[in-house]
Structure formats: structure tokens, C-alpha cells
């Protein structure tokens, strides 16, 4: 038998938990299916679980640790009666009424939950380079979590791939431990914000390898270096590093919604202008799963609030 809910929120980053706080306070008894622990950003609490100091979230003048901020969001949602389930959604049917949601075996006939409205806040996860031996070397030199693993590269030479804010932030953080951090970027300038760029250029431990791409990992059981190629001249060289941190961008967690929700070409969920409404009435999207422009904790939280209010109004109009 399926359990029925008024609101099911899928995902538990700043967007999902803000939606939970608002819908719980509106007495809609939301269920948050928060995901399962992992060492990637696809996990309860979302991408902030893999960060250290969050300096730009308003209300914390001296900053706050990412995991602590998310623990606060979570307990605030629980305080108003949101129910949290530490499982992963494996399948949805948004063409059914009420909506159908499965956790665990996606082949089971009965959905685990049915819902009058669904808020999708599954976020985005870090992209990998998809080179041979990558998965085997994760945890043995290749890392998706600078804050988890930086400590182990004390006085070693390492590299970060990427040129955006997250790449520069990781390099700055890693420079506390490593003797040298090389930022490998395929362009000749950074996409990172001005303040981050200035900090990186001023950091004596950070060097730049412009116009280069990583083409191969060297090392069988642990990383010993990477082969890099100049994107214009196609010349190859080797960089000896014991650690490589990948920060080349994100991809939205939308695989279970394909063929059901309208997506942009890049896979992000389409929402109506100035709202969280998707192409299906009663299904709302918020946070990074529908935002490839701003992608901040504060904008995710703001859009989570929008989704909660949109869901509340929709339920009122369709009550009974």
C-alpha cells in the first residue's frame, strides 16, 4: 500500500529544506525524501555538505560551515513538523493523479508514496572527466571533495581542474595543505568572480596552467600524475601530482524526470517565468535543478520558498 501525502519534496539542499520549512509552517505536513549519504554532492544537504566556510550567506557575519548551515536548515524544518526520509527516489510517475513516487525497488507495482503535489529540489552534482581508471582512482588521489580530502595532501603537489568559482575556491582551500596547487584550465582566463581571482593570483602556492586539458591519469593503484594537452598546439606534457581535484561544473539531477518534465537542452528543469511551476500542474521545481545561472545557496533557498508558496496556493485551489 502506498502512503498518501499532501506535499512530497524530493531533495534536501537549501531549496528543498526551505520549501519544507514553509510548507510545514502552512500545516501541509511535508515529507522530504532527502537522498542517501554519498561522498558526492548528490546527498542529503546537497552541495554545501562538501564545503567549509560559507561567507556569503546573509545572517552569518563571520561565516558558517556548510554542513552546519545545512544541519540548521534541517532542524528548523523538523521543528515545524516536516518528516525526513533518508532514502533515494528511484522512480516517479507525474502523469498519474495523485502523483506516484517510489523509493527502493523501482519495479514494485505499488508506489511507496502518492502525493497531491511534488516539489523537485534534487540539485546538481559535480561533473567528472570520464577518463579511463577514474572511478578506481577516486579516494586514491582523485577527489570530488576538497574539504574531505585536502588534509591528506599536506606538503604535496596537487592540481585542480576547472576555471570557475568552485575550482578557485577549492584551490584556495587546498593551498592550506599542499606545497603547490596547479589550476589546469582549458581557457586563458578564469570564469571565477573578481574577488576569487584576486585571491588566487595573490596566493604564492597557486600556479596556473592555461589552455590545457587533462587527457590521461597516470598511476594504477594511486595517482602519480596526469597527462595534459595544450588545446591549441596539441602538445602533450606530464604533470607530477599526487592529487587531482575536479571542479569543471555541474549537471542537474534530473534523470528520473526525463520524459515527464520539460527540460532545457542542458537537462535543467524548465519553470515558468517568475514562478516555480513546471509543465505539469502541481509539480514545482526549485534550487539548482532548475537554475544554471545563479546557483547560490541563497537563490536556492529563495526559490524553495517560492515553490512552497506556489504549492500551497495550488493545493488550496484544488482542495477536495
Amino acid at each position, binding site marked *: 500500500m502506498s502512503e498518501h501525502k499532501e506535499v512530497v519534496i524530493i531533495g534536501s539542499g537549501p531549496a528543498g529544506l526551505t520549501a519544507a520549512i514553509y510548507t510545514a509552517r502552512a500545516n501541509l505536513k511535508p515529507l522530504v525524501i532527502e537522498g542517501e549519504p554519498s561522498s558526492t554532492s548528490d*546527498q542529503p544537504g546537497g552541495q554545501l555538505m562538501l564545503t567549509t566556510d560559507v561567507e556569503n550567506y546573509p545572517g552569518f557575519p563571520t561565516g558558517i560551515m556548510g554542513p552546519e548551515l545545512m544541519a540548521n536548515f534541517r532542524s528548523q524544518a523538523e521543528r515545524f513538523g516536516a518528516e525526513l526520509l533518508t532514502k533515494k527516489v528511484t522512480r516517479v510517475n507525474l502523469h498519474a493523479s495523485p502523483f506516484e513516487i517510489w523509493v527502493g525497488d523501482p519495479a514494485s507495482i505499488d508506489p511507496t508514496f502518492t502525493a497531491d503535489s511534488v516539489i523537485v529540489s534534487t540539485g546538481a552534482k559535480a561533473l567528472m572527466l570520464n577518463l579511463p581508471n577514474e572511478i578506481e582512482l577516486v579516494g586514491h588521489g582523485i577527489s570530488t571533495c576538497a*574539504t*574531505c580530502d585536502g*588534509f591528506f595532501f599536506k606538503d604535496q603537489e596537487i592540481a585542480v581542474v576547472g576555471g570557475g568559482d568552485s575550482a578557485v575556491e577549492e584551490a584556495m582551500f587546498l593551498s592550506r595543505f599542499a606545497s603547490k596547487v596547479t589550476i589546469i584550465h582549458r581557457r586563458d582566463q578564469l570564469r571565477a568572480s573578481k574577488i576569487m581571482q584576486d585571491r588566487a593570483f595573490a596566493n604564492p602556492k597557486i600556479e596556473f596552467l592555461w589552455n590545457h586539458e587533462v587527457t590521461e591519469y597516470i598511476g594504477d593503484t594511486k595517482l602519480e600524475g596526469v597527462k595534459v594537452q595544450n588545446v591549441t598546439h596539441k602538445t602533450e606534457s606530464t604533470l607530477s601530482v599526487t592529487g587531482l581535484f575536479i571542479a569543471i561544473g555541474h549537471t542537474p539531477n534530473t534523470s528520473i524526470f526525463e520524459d515527464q518534465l520539460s527540460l532545457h537542452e542542458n537537462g535543467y528543469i524548465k519553470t515558468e517565468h517568475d514562478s516555480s511551476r513546471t509543465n505539469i500542474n502541481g509539480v514545482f521545481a526549485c534550487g539548482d535543478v532548475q537554475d544554471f545561472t545563479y546557483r547560490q545557496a541563497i537563490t536556492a533557498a529563495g526559490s524553495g520558498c517560492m515553490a512552497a508558496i506556489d504549492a500551497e496556493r495550488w493545493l488550496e485551489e484544488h482542495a477536495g
Partner: protein
Amino acid sequence: MSDSTTTLTAGTFDEVVNASDKPILVDFWAEWCGPCKMIAPILEEIASEQGEHIQIAKLNVDEAGDIARRFEVMSIPTLIVFDEGVPTKRIVGAKSKDALLEDLSEFI
């Protein structure tokens, strides 16, 4: 925190791991690691449910960096199961309880 998990230190690690009469899982963790915090309650549960088959212990890598280096821990959480003092299984990265229990099925 709980009676079911053992807290190891650099000073007690070798003695406890070698003396254990059943397999002992050592969780290499640190305060600053988000994924470590997420699996901590799962390990507590496994400790109380599977305590007769496997002992669950925690080692803070900030306090015992040498031991983390000795076992080439380069990423946390890393869970290493020692059987009669010998490392026999290594699990890197946070996982769900079901996935962890499957990884540990040979011991429980």
C-alpha cells in the same frame, strides 16, 4: 557518544585492533568532513545491530594522522575492516546503510 562504538586514539589503535576477537571496522573520520558526519549515525546503528559479529571503532585523523598515513588513507570517510589485525576490506566514501551492509556482508 554511544556505548556500541569504540573510540580509538593513536595510543590505543594497535592494541585494540590486534586484540579484537572479531573483525573490527575502523572509521577514519574528522570533524570537518560532512560525509563523515552523515555516516556516523549509520555506523552507530550497525554497531548496535551487528555488535556480536563486528566491532565498530572510530579514529579521528586529526589526532592520529600517522596511523591514517600508515594505511594510506587519502580520502575520508574511509572504513577499513581488520580481521585478526590484518586489513581485509576497505570502503571509501559515504554510502547508505543498505550499501554498507552489503559491503560488510562477508563479516555479518
